[in-house]
Structures are given as structure tokens and as C-alpha cells.
């Protein structure tokens, strides 16, 4: 039959590495945004958080106006929801159903799978940033222009750190546990982990712990960059450290099946 007419044995039949990663990235992106519940987590909840923060006085004295303090925190929330919770849960269930196993036998391979997921996270995060930023502008958001480049760097670093953490959890425990852990972490980090509210707003005795969390590094650095245009070297270093440690641990302990 026609399926095997062009067998050219001995030579690679795979498309280039770049193309593989792009194709897998597109596939993972579509997988991420196809689900209705993903859309709720990716867009509806961050928008609710934005409105909640602007129309209450929860963020008094953080910035000149509540909207300026709210947008950076909501962007940080998007990072955690997309890179960590959404991607972690999807990976956990992919592992359960043997999808990782199957795809790692195709030209995608393990490298392609990981980069595909990272790409999907970055694409979805860009879309969230556009939506949140756009709604923010309509609501009068005025970011410090000098901090925008820093903010982009911090968003990317945050995405890297939380993707690595999400993969570490998804690759080592059952998918149900991944679901529970990443959702719980999302709520806790959003509330008291320095995501939506500055880490200085939590009780003093837990601040030393909160301050070294990637969530506080992400949230506080984004606020510093977008409210006052300053770069937080410490925050960037903490995010880098988390990326390296979690990345190493995920490489070491990730179970493909």
C-alpha cells in the first residue's frame, strides 16, 4: 500500500530540531487553551483579581493608585497559574495517560517535550499579559516606562522558575496530588506569598521565609519595576536560583511513566 513507498532507510526522517520544538510548542499551546477550565484560570480569575484589587482598598499605599499596584501582582498571578498550576496539572495527567512516554518515542523526544511546554507557557503568558495590560490601560494603569524591560525579564524568569517547579511536582507525584498541591500553592502564594500583595504585608515573623520564595521575588520585583522603574537584583537572583535548583531536580527525578 501507499504508506511505505518512500522508505529511505538509514537516514533521519525527522524534521529539524527547531521545527520540532515549534510544532510541539504549537501543539502544547493549543492543548493549554483548548480547555474551558484553562481559560477560566488563565483569564477570568486574573481579571477578577484585578477588579477586586482596584475596587477595594486592599492595596492602599503600595502605589500612587490602586491600579498601578494591582497590575504587576496580577501579572505575577498569571505566571503562577500558567507555568505552575495549569502546566503542572496537564503534565501530571499526560504522564498518567502515557502521553509523555509515547511522545518521547517520536522525534519530539524528551527535549522537545520540555521545550514545547516552555514555549506554550510563554505564548499563553504573553496573551495573558496583553489582556491584563490592555484592561489595565483602560482602567488607567500607568506603568513606569523605565521598568518595562525589567518587567519582561522578570516575567520570563518567573515563568522559567515556576515551569521548572511545576514539572518537578508533576514528574514526581501522582496527578491527583499535583492537582491538589499546585492549586493550594496557587491560592496560598497569591494571598500571602508575595504575589498579589507585597511581601511586607505579611506578619513579620514569616517574612524571612516569604522573602526567599520565588513568588515573593516575582511579585515584589514586578511591582518595583512597574511602579517605580527600579530593578531588583535580589529578586532576579532568587528567581534564577529557583530556576536552576528546580530545573536540576526535575531533570534528576522526573519520572516519565
Amino acid at each position, binding site marked *: *500500500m*501507499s*504508506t*511505505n513507498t*518512500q*522508505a*529511505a*532507510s538509514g*537516514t*533521519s*526522517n*525527522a*524534521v529539524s*530540531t527547531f521545527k*520540532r520544538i515549534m*510544532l510541539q510548542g504549537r*501543539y502544547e499551546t493549543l*492543548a493549554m487553551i*483548548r*480547555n474551558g477550565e484553562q481559560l477560566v484560570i488563565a483569564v477570568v480569575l486574573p481579571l477578577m483579581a484585578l477588579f477586586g484589587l482596584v475596587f477595594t482598598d486592599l492595596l492602599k499605599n503600595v502605589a500612587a493608585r490602586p491600579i498601578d499596584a494591582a497590575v504587576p501582582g496580577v501579572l505575577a498571578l498569571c505566571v503562577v497559574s500558567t507555568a505552575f498550576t495549569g502546566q503542572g496539572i496537564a503534565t501530571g*495527567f*499526560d504522564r498518567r*495517560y*502515557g*502521553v*509523555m*512516554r*509515547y*511522545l*518521547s*518515542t*517520536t*522525534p*519530539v*523526544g524528551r527535549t*522537545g517535550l520540555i521545550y514545547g511546554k516552555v514555549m506554550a507557557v510563554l505564548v499563553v503568558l504573553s496573551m495573558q499579559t496583553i489582556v491584563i495590560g490592555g484592561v489595565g490601560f483602560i482602567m488607567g494603569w500607568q506603568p513606569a516606562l523605565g521598568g518595562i524591560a525589567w518587567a519582561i525579564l522578570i516575567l520570563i524568569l518567573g515563568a522559567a522558575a515556576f515551569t521548572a517547579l511545576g514539572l518537578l511536582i508533576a514528574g514526581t507525584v501522582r496527578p491527583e496530588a499535583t492537582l491538589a498541591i499546585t492549586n493550594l500553592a496557587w491560592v496560598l502564594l497569591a494571598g500571602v506569598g508575595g504575589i498579589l500583595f507585597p511581601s511586607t504585608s505579611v506578619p513579620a515573623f514569616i517574612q524571612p521565609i516569604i522573602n526567599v520564595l520565588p513568588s515573593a521575588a516575582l511579585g515584589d520585583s514586578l511591582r518595583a519595576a512597574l511602579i517605580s522603574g527600579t530593578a531588583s537584583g535580589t529578586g532576579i537572583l532568587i528567581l534564577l536560583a529557583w530556576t536552576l535548583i528546580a530545573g536540576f531536580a526535575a531533570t534528576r527525578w522526573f519520572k*516519565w*511513566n
Partner: protein
Amino acid sequence: MSPSLVIEGLLKDFGPVPALDGRMVRVLNGISLTANPGSVTTLLGSNGAGKSTTLACAQGLLRPDGGKISLLGEDPYGASPALRSRVGVMLQDGGLPPSLRPIPLLRHVTSLYQRPADINALIERLGINEFSNTSIRRLSGGQKQRVALAAALAGNPEVIFLDEPSAGLDPQSRQVVFDLITELRDAGLCIVLTTHLMEDAQRLSDYVYIIDDGINVAQGTVAELTARATHESTAQAVTFSADPALELPELAGHLLLLEHAPGQYRLEGVREANDLASLTAWWARESILPQSLSMQPRSLEDVFLEIADKGNDVN
């Protein structure tokens, strides 16, 4: 013609197992096999014999604890995308993303290859159009199998690994799948499959490795394996039906005559013409003309059971 797959002395341990005081369990204990292009090589064994673990090592999904594997001349563990692009894999559990529909998945897989198979022809051939609007999660076991087979063939591979390819298939799809496997074999592919079903092994295989307890205990073509058994201790059985009131005769010690249902007789242990003569002599004495008579050729199942029995005796 060099073999596509050579496995030598493959060892694999699982564990540590808490129930065994944290000891490791050896699941592969020296498997050796060779698979050639243009041939269906079957790993036959009961559940837990080590067939799928052997395939997982050959596919590069598991790192062996000992022994050597050469797949198209490369070590499959951590293999290059170039090697993976020449090998198609159908896993036992499918490994298909449940939320996708079959055709978008197949299109994605196809896009990863420079010289893919004609995926539309495969979709048509395997009847995937019939359920193309259903997400994989909602497909029946047999439908999933067909999608997994199409995915394994999407890259026009030189070697395909099929783990229990007929599991869950209805007789009609089974025929389609078996015909396809035979055609691919004729087109020169190296096909390595596992099954615990003797009938499938007998129907499809050019060469069979019987796997028991992590090692290959017998190998050969189906004809060789069944012939071997006839020459050894296992013998044929004669079944016939006659008057249930018959008194059973004295027969040679290695023969066993059973009335397994009223009027239904079975003589086991027939090895040579004389054994049959003693049966027909008894019929002549008693004026029995059986209403029906059949002699079963040795099947792979008999060979398998014999080998498995021997193994159990040793244990």
C-alpha cells in the same frame, strides 16, 4: 541483510519493592533476540513474563541494567531524534492524549517527519473516519488501538514495535490490522510485537520467542516450534464420540482415555501409529464406529504450556 534489532543478555531490575524488604526484583533475566527487516518477530509469553519491559528497553524508554541492545545500529537509550524518526512505537496503553480527537493528533505526529506516511490512506484503511469527531477519551479500546497503530506508522518507520496490537479489537478490525501488519512485513519493515495470545502469534509471526520469567525459553518459526514439540514428549489428542455406555479398555501407560462429557471421549498422549492402533483395535473389538473423530495438530499453545510447565517443575 543486517538485523534491525539485536538484544543480547538483557537484564532489568525493578524496585526496590517495599513488600520484599526493599529488595530489587529482576524482571528481565538475560533476554536475547534478533529481529530482521521484512519479518514479524513475536515475543510470546503470559502476562508479567517481561515482554513489555523488553520492548520498553528496545524503544529506549527504560535503561537496561545489563546486556546490550542495538536498534538500527544504535543504543536506543537516549537515542538521537534521527533514530527515533526511523522507529514507530505502539504502546500497550496507547499513550494518546485523551482530550484530543484522533485526526488532529495524527496530523501533529505526521508533521514531525520529513517523509511521513500517507496519513489519509492510513486513516481510511483503519476506519478512523468513523469516529473522528470523538475525543480519544471516549473511544473504545479497539478504536484507541487503531489510532495508536496509525500514529506508530505515521512516520513511515523502518522498525515498528507493537505491544499487544490486537488487544480490544473486534474480529473485523483484527482482520484489518493483521492484513496491514502482513503487508508492512512484505514491504520490508521489521515488525516486533508482543502477545499473550497463541492464536495471534501463530497467525502473524515469522519468528517467535517464547518469553517466560524474564528470559527467552524457546524460539523458532511457528513450524519449528510446533514440530519440536511433536518430537518431544507432548503428543496429540484424539477426540471422538461414541456410546456413553462403553467400558473403557486397558491401554498403554502413556495413553489416557477420558470421557469428558457423556459420549465424548478424548485420548491424550498419542505419539505414534501404534497408539492409534490400540485405540482402533478396541473399537474393532467393541464394534464401535465413532460418529466423529478428530486429531488436533500441535498448536503453539501446547508448546507454550509444555514449556511453562517445565519451568514450573523446576521452580
